């Protein structure tokens, strides 16, 4: 089973996304064997989390079993969140400290940690908002919350440090998407922190799903490690049915 931990639907202002649709994602998922993808709507990451979250849930309902929803929490708008995970296909909460300009360790996120759902957060090495050190700080304070470190910090010069910072916090998982990630680095991360702590994500439709999966599929990994990274870890932490 291949599960994509980090997906999006919708447009983004910075650049052209030729195919931002859910239909396009499903066609690609079928083409390469991806069972399901966790999505947040890019409108929700941007200015309207509440409406974007509703759109993401509608998409998940339109394609049963193919999408889980990371409901975006905007700390400035105090976005209402559902705490019922399985009923409406919600996988957890998505945070984007850089877009929302609110540090990951800011008290404004307390309602999210209190919810107890898995959290996928953008991470960016040396960012004042989302440096991996903030993930370690939050994970130490809230060890009961599964925390996916999006992009493993984004920049290659910070990948090894991100793995070191996460190593002592078993609730932190390194998520693999990003334009600078390589198959070689994914194999290194597995060697550093263990295959049970690395989770496949693509960032599609922002990025191309096939490129993201290819880094896992063709990385120099053992078959059991690849199975964990490409879906078994996420299925375990989300308690998804086998």
């Amino acid at each position: 089973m291949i599960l994509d931990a980090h997906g999006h639907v919708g447009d983004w202002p910075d650049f052209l996304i030729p195919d931002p649709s859910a239909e396009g994602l499903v066609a690609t998922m079928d083409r390469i064997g991806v069972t399901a993808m966790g999505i947040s709507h890019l409108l929700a990451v941007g200015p309207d989390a509440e409406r974007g979250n509703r759109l993401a849930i509608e998409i998940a309902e339109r394609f049963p079993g193919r999408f889980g929803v990371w409901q975006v929490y905007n700390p400035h708008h105090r976005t209402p969140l559902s705490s019922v995970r399985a009923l409406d296909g919600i996988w957890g909460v998505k945070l984007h400290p850089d877009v929302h300009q609110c540090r990951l360790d800011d008290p404004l996120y307390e309602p999210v940690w209190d919810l107890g759902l898995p959290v996928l957060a953008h991470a960016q090495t040396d960012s004042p908002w989302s440096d991996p050190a903030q993930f370690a700080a939050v994970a130490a304070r809230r060890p009961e919350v599964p925390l996916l470190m999006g992009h493993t910090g984004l920049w290659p010069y910070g990948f090894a440090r991100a793995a070191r910072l996460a190593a002592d916090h078993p609730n932190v998982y390194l998520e693999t998407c990003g334009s600078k990630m390589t198959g070689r680095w994914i194999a290194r991360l597995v060697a550093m922190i263990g295959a049970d702590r690395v989770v496949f994500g693509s960032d599609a439709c922002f990025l191309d799903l096939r490129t993201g999966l290819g880094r896992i599929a063709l990385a120099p990994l053992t078959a059991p490690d690849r199975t964990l990274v490409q879906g078994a870890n996420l299925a375990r932490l989300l308690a998804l049915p086998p």
Partner: protein
Amino acid sequence: MPKLVIDAHRLIGPVPFDDLPSDPRAEMDRLGIDRACVTHTLSLYSDAEAGNEALLRLDDPRLIPVPVVVPGVPGASAPADLHQVLAWNVRMIRLCPERHRFDLTGPIALRWLAALALPVAIDLEETSPAQLHTLFTRLPEQRVLLLNPGYRRLRAVAELMAETRRVWLEMGTVNTQGGVEWLAHRFGADRLVFGTGAPIADDCGPRFLLDHLALEPSAVDLIAAGSLSGLL
């Protein structure tokens, strides 16, 4: 699956900021890449001439040498004069105007390019679409392989491709959903070239993407090798 795969953009040699394989051939074998255009890292991170000498000593038909040329006044260029470039008998050269601090559309670079009449590989981060527009205005027959175009500047890159048919695009970093198909439908698969920038950039993702493009097999074969063969 494409019949033949040529990576238009690989490096050979060590890099100063990471521990990466200095010889690309083992990874090429593992990923099913038949041949590769290679530039020596010494030419990028040290002395261009030393890198070119090491590159041109390679004697492997799988590796197509792409030496780095630095146009300039006598004493500031690499190699010392453009006749040495012609003596190399290579099929493509690489220019790094930003790294080597010369003007791509300055009089010397334009004279060298006109005299060489060779395809030129340039990383988009080493130039700009506006500078390339100027280059094509001055040298309308110049062929350019645009390396590392990325996905964030897709609009500007598409405008460049619409204005001239002398630009070919490396697809390894065209990494937004459906980006390669979007370009192929608008400009033709014969303008797109498989390339990775490995080992610094990723080769696993682009190689997988090549096998799973939503294009006709003939178009995939062009991207995998045919377009580059046409360019060279």
